[in-house]
């Protein structure tokens, strides 16, 4: 079969600004995407996925190498290539003040789609994306998932030979994600479309025909998803945690244990990858646990490749290992969290925006030292609930107490007990790391020596010490998040609120992030977190799922699985089952 994209030794170097070293976004990448197939690009942030896509689109010139699309040289005839493909960038430019139909018409005009074929095409796209009922709605008022679908529809107003999608499902809930992928599969089948998609979700990569793993500009592997999956064959194990030990503690201990490539809580157990015999691992020995071999998943193969690539780059310093070992041996067995006093109490909470009920009669409580998750599809009301908890939004009715007070009306001292990390990076972009920390420290009443000590402490904790004088906006993504965490924790609060902290970050960075959360929780900090990644519910002591403002379920991952009779099922499936069941019940009544 013909290759729709063929790259040979493709290299792209971005010259460094003002004395900074050049960054090599792609170095010597050779890959091929076949016609009529779906090809996935996966890799951590900064792997070069977006750069590759932009090169394919002819949006910039390469430093070296060759690249052709459908046999045309991209760099010699960029316009011809652009006529063949459609590109949906990470942030697709929808016009938020135009309606769904107007956005479609606008993109059809821009692409010169003849009026004759428009009607049929629009009908088909709207039907496929389930947006037919919303043509008159402003794009700005659509939920995240619907926006992405509209973006896809706008990208597809004409029939391209090749479709490029750059992380099309970032920040989209599992239900909408599943629908989006069904649309894509249908398109490939019916229109013989070729698709190149980059994604941070491994189960999405598993749906593609070919997968290419990029890391720091280099191609680590290319092949079928099956080949990537079996790369981890014989290395995967799973272990049951003892009762009352949060999975995340065991996972975190395993992750830092020497010889372990990866560890992640999944389906009520901790999965890990190691080349050693599991009996040799300190955390398992200390707790007297027996691990059993497990089937490899695509993510395991991916993590193995990444970890090995990183280990080649730099050997981990020895002292970290000993510290981790020490931590693993004294693995704490905390009392069950429900025995601790309730720190957050919510009773019959309601929030209405005009006639629309965003949150309906919700009650729950969070105990000291707990990690509590708020999950739900886009527009389910979790952000609204979250904002009410933080005191950013008044409740319409109901009781809401955080550490004994309502933060909305609380005196300023009460707010000193909470830390808040917003969804998108929201510190002062043009101030330096130090200035940001200093300001937030001051806002929380610290000054003088105490302030200096806390700044130094959080900078150390989040590895920001070398970047204190850099402007926050210039920090790479991972560092920005660390800075947000550092700023939220500068006053050592008892409760930390995190709004979708992991959306848009790769599996590797998410592991590190959750390790941080585990460490904080072990230190007694109560964590309330919202997330789109359902598998992250495994890290929580308890979580609740909302849909259409109603609380559908509340409990620990194990309890919820048991209630559904789906022991060992991945969280995504549990989530979809719960939401669909609730929606069916609603339609039934």
């Amino acid at each position, binding site marked *: 079969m013909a290759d729709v994209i063929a790259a040979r030794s493709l290299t792209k170097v971005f010259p460094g600004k003002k004395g900074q070293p050049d960054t090599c976004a792609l170095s010597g990448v050779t890959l091929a995407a076949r016609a009529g197939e779906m090809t996935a690009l996966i890799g951590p942030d900064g792997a070069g996925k977006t750069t590759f896509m932009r090169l394919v689109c002819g949006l910039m010139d390469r430093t070296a190498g060759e690249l052709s699309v459908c046999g045309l040289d991209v760099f010699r005839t960029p316009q011809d290539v652009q006529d063949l493909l459609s590109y949906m960038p990470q942030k697709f430019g929808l016009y938020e003040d135009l309606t769904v139909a107007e956005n479609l018409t606008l993109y059809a005009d821009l692409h010169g789609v003849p009026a004759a074929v428009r009607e049929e095409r629009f009908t088909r796209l709207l039907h496929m994306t389930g947006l037919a009922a919303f043509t008159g709605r402003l794009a700005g008022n659509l939920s995240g998932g619907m926006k992405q679908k509209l973006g896809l529809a706008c990208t597809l107003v004409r029939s391209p030979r090749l479709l490029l999608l750059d992380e099309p499902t970032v920040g989209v809930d599992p239900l909408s994600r599943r629908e989006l992928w069904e649309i894509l599969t249908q398109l490939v089948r019916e229109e013989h479309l070729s698709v190149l998609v980059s994604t941070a979700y491994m189960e999405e990569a598993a749906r593609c025909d070919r997968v290419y793993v990029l890391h720091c500009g280099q191609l680590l592997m290319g092949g079928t998803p099956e080949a990537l999956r079996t790369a981890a064959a014989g290395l995967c194990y799973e272990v049951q945690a003892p009762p009352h030990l949060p999975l995340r503690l065991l996972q975190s201990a395993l992750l830092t244990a020497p010889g372990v490539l990866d560890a992640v809580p999944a389906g009520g157990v901790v999965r890990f990858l190691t080349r050693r015999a599991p009996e040799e691992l300190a955390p398992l020995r200390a707790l007297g646990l027996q691990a059993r071999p497990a089937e490899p998943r695509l993510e395991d193969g991916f993590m193995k490749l990444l970890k090995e690539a990183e280990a080649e780059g730099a050997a981990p310093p020895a002292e970290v290992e000993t510290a981790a070992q020490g931590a693993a041996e004294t693995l704490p067995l905390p009392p069950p969290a429900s025995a601790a006093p309730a720190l957050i109490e919510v009773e019959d909470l309601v929030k209405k925006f005009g006639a629309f009920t965003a949150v309906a009669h919700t009650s729950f409580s969070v105990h000291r030292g707990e990690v509590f998750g708020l999950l739900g599809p886009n527009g389910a009301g979790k952000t609204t609930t979250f904002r009410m908890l933080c005191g950013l939004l008044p409740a319409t009715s109901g009781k809401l107490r955080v550490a004994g007070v309502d933060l909305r009306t609380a005196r300023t001292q009460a707010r000193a007990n909470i830390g808040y990390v917003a969804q998108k990076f929201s510190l002062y972009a043009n101030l330096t790391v130090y200035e940001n920390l200093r300001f937030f420290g*001051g806002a929380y009443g610290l000054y003088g020596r105490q302030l200096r000590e806390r700044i130094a402490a959080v900078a150390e904790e989040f590895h920001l010490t070398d970047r204190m004088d850099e402007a926050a906006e210039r920090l790479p993504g991972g560092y920005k998040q660390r800075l947000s965490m550092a700023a939220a924790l500068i006053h050592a609060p008892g409760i930390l609120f995190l709004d979708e902290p992991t959306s848009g970050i790769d599996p590797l960075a998410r592991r590190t992030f959750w390790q941080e959360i585990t460490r904080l929780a072990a230190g007694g900090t109560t964590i309330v977190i919202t997330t789109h990644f359902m598998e992250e519910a495994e890290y929580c002591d308890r979580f609740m799922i909302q849909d259409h403002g109603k609380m559908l379920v509340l409990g620990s991952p194990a309890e919820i699985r048991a209630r559904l009779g789906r022991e060992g099922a991945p969280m995504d499936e549990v989530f979809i089952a719960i939401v669909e069941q609730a929606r069916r019940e609603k339609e039934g009544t």
Partner: protein
Amino acid sequence: MSQFALFCRHVAFLAQKEMRSLVKDPRMRVQLVVPVLIMGFLFGYAANYNIEDIPYVAIDASHTAASTDFLAHVEGAPAFHCVAAPGNIDAAKDLLDTGEALAILTVPETFERQLAAGETAPVQVIADGRNPALAGMIERYIARIAADWSAAQSGRTPAITLETRTWYNPNQLSRWTFLPSFLAMIAFVQVMMLAGMSIAREREQGTFDQLLVTPLSKTAILIGKAIPPVAVGLFQAMCVFLIARFWFGVPFAGNFATLMLTLFLFMVSTTGVGLSISSISRNMQQVLVYLLVLMIPMVLLSGLVTPVRNMPAALQVATYADPLRFAIDAVRRIYLEGATLGEIAPDFLPMLGVAAVTMPLSGWLFRRRS
């Protein structure tokens, strides 16, 4: 006491942060200084109602000793200079059309005859009415020259003479009135912008939530946010003051501390208006729209362009809500007549009133809007 110390520290940290992010941006630094200097000099040089040069066309149809003498008298006046002396009106018309001349002075054929007969001899002045103020001044100026000339001709002293003196600006230099008003004006524009953007920018960039969850009280946020615009406004007013005083040499009659206090009060009331706008706006674009809608009427009502006295009664009442009106009035009076604190105190009341309403209002609005 410790509560108060905490409050002060909060305000200080916030103000410091605001100031830092303001001056960090090189474009912003330029924007804070360059327009002030450009506009200061521009207003000093360009905003001038005084007639220093009047080109005119003389048509002498009479060609007599009397008419020559009269025209020489006009030409001898300091501002006047004759650009052409064509024989007929048609050629003169063209010069007026193109703007090469501002007036046509025609001495009719019968001029000397009528004078000799003891009759009143008419002399025609055609002025360029496209600028009525200027035309009026030219007409008055020529009338005075003509009166002087006829008095000298007849040898009789007129029954009365007017001895006029204009106080505070003896030579009626419009630069003198403009520059001091401009002290308040330029600061007004920038302070409104800075205060207007301050909350809206944070809201747009998502940092506002982060600010609201901190223990900073509403009052501390407001005061902390108000300090940088007020400081910037005072700095800019100072720039204009220095330009007016030392470059254009407009003498400063008043007390410097009084001037600063007035400007400070004005900045506070303006900042209150700006912050209120910022609180109700969702984004910076909205702020710009509100600012435009509000600032133009505020400038018009301030009496900078046309005297408040000339406005309809209802509008005159509306000017009380315009701090710019009282700031301009107070600054002019302090600068030119050396008014004391006691004398301009009535001007403070409306400004204080606006500040007392808008400051709490913006606090109330921003809590509600979030």
